[in-house]
């Protein structure tokens, strides 16, 4: 089907609600070539699919007036880093790494619970205080303290923490400490980047070992570049937070490197973003399915090539050769 016919079909379709729509002209156009009807059917069905799911789409899509949604394709490779704030002083990278490697103040008398998930697995965890945690695939959660209020996460999880007066939950992840007094939020962290998105309530986020914290409220996410000590706060759709539990991975302006490490959880093969594309930002929704289609979908959406290198799938800039 030629582009011209599609353009014409789109134009007829758009105009059909006008009071003075040219029904005779439309009939003649349809009669001129059976391909016209096929094109119009296609456009009308496409439109109907979207209209049919309007409320669900409105809930899932990032609001138009939110932070810049950085999109794929060749025209978008330079990422506008708006609203970046100096997140922490230089020279603390080593301190952050240490804080992760050595959980502080662990008394041998206190019970420590460890939860691990493998590729494609997830796990629901209930704590004594009624907190619920959904641990995503290939992740690790450690629960410490008599009140089960000191948590350490590697990987990805969604937290649903009920409000308890006088109690603060402390979660370490991605070189940050997140303190929370009753909220629902999602954390995704790898060695480079950490994303925290808040669906309800608010949390305080601070780099491990620092005293300054940033408050993050519902409908906001913060993407932290650990090496650069920078965090970017932007708007997110609360309903989409934690939707990996329904088999959807939703990203809004997340570096490709973090997307790659996240889909590795489901793909069964490590996925890495090459240095040339690691900082590109990705926004979109991926369907997990059996995990095997994720890499291909990201590659297609962002116009990337895939290759195998050292047992991992490597995503690199597209083009020929």
């Amino acid at each position, binding site marked *: 089907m030629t*582009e011209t016919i*599609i*353009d014409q079909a*789109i*134009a007829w*379709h*758009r105009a*059909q609600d006008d*009071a003075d*729509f040219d*029904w005779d002209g*439309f*009939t003649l156009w*349809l*009669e001129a070539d*059976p391909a016209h*009807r096929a094109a*119009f*059917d*296609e*456009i*009308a*069905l*496409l*439109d*109907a*699919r*979207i*209209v049919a*799911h*309007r409320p*669900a*789409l*409105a809930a*899932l*899509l*990032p609001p*138009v007036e939110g932070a810049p*949604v950085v*999109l*794929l*394709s060749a*025209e*978008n490779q330079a990422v506008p880093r708006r609203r970046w704030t100096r997140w922490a002083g230089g020279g603390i990278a080593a301190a952050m790494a240490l804080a992760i490697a050595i959980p502080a103040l662990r008394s041998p008398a206190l019970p420590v619970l460890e939860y691990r998930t493998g590729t494609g697995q997830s796990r629901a965890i209930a704590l004594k205080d009624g907190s619920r945690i959904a641990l995503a695939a290939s992740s690790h959660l450690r629960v410490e303290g008599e009140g089960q209020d000191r948590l350490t996460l590697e990987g990805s999880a969604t937290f649903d923490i009920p409000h308890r007066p006088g109690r603060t939950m402390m979660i370490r992840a991605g070189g940050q400490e997140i303190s929370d007094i009753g909220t629902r939020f999602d954390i995704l962290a790898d060695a480079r980047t950490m994303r925290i998105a808040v669906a309800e309530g608010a949390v305080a986020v601070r780099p491990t070992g620092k005293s300054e914290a940033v408050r993050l409220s519902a409908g906001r996410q913060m993407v932290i570049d650990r090496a650069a000590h920078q965090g970017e706060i932007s708007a997110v759709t609360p309903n989409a937070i934690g939707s990996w539990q*329904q*088999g*959807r991975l939703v990203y*809004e302006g997340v570096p490709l490197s973090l997307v790659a490490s996240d889909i590795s959880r489901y793909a069964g093969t490590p996925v890495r973003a090459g240095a040339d594309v690691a900082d590109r930002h990705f*926004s*979109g*929704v*991926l*369907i997990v399915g059996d995990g095997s289609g994720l890499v291909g979908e990201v590659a297609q*959406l962002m116009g990337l090539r895939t290759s195998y290198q050292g047992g991992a799938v490597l995503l690199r800039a597209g083009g020929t050769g």
Partner: protein
Amino acid sequence: MEGGLETVYHALRGELLRFLVARTGNAAEAEDVLHDMWLRIGEGNSGPVANPRAYLYRVAQNLVLDRLREKKRREIRDRAWMEMASGSDLRHADPVDPRADALEQMTAREEVARLASAIANLPPGARRAFQLHKVEGLPHGEVAERLGISKSGVEKHMAVAMKYLRRALRDD
């Protein structure tokens, strides 16, 4: 009012049939739709109609779309059922099994995620215009105001969006 509409229907029967043959590509189906229109008018739910001719064309257009959607829905359901049935004991189950509901819900969830993904990945200008108009339901004029562009600019964005979406959502 219905009386007026019936009169117009009879007067325009010939051109409506011609339109429906062109629109459906099938003379028998065109007659069916024309008959459905007659029943629809007989129900008399239309209220006052300012422009009966445009109204009748629009009814015809909508009935054809309803049929198309139903056909598509059946195809997708049958395909999903076949995919699910192969590789499980469901292949002996009857498609009116209660599990068919769960299957439809699952298909709907996947559909929403796929649409959202395609929309989120539109070029930025087209995405903003498309989302405000199609998803949030703002008229073109308000979309133009919100985005600080002309109405024809909105229309161009919408056309670009439709073309992108058509490519992204093909073969579903």
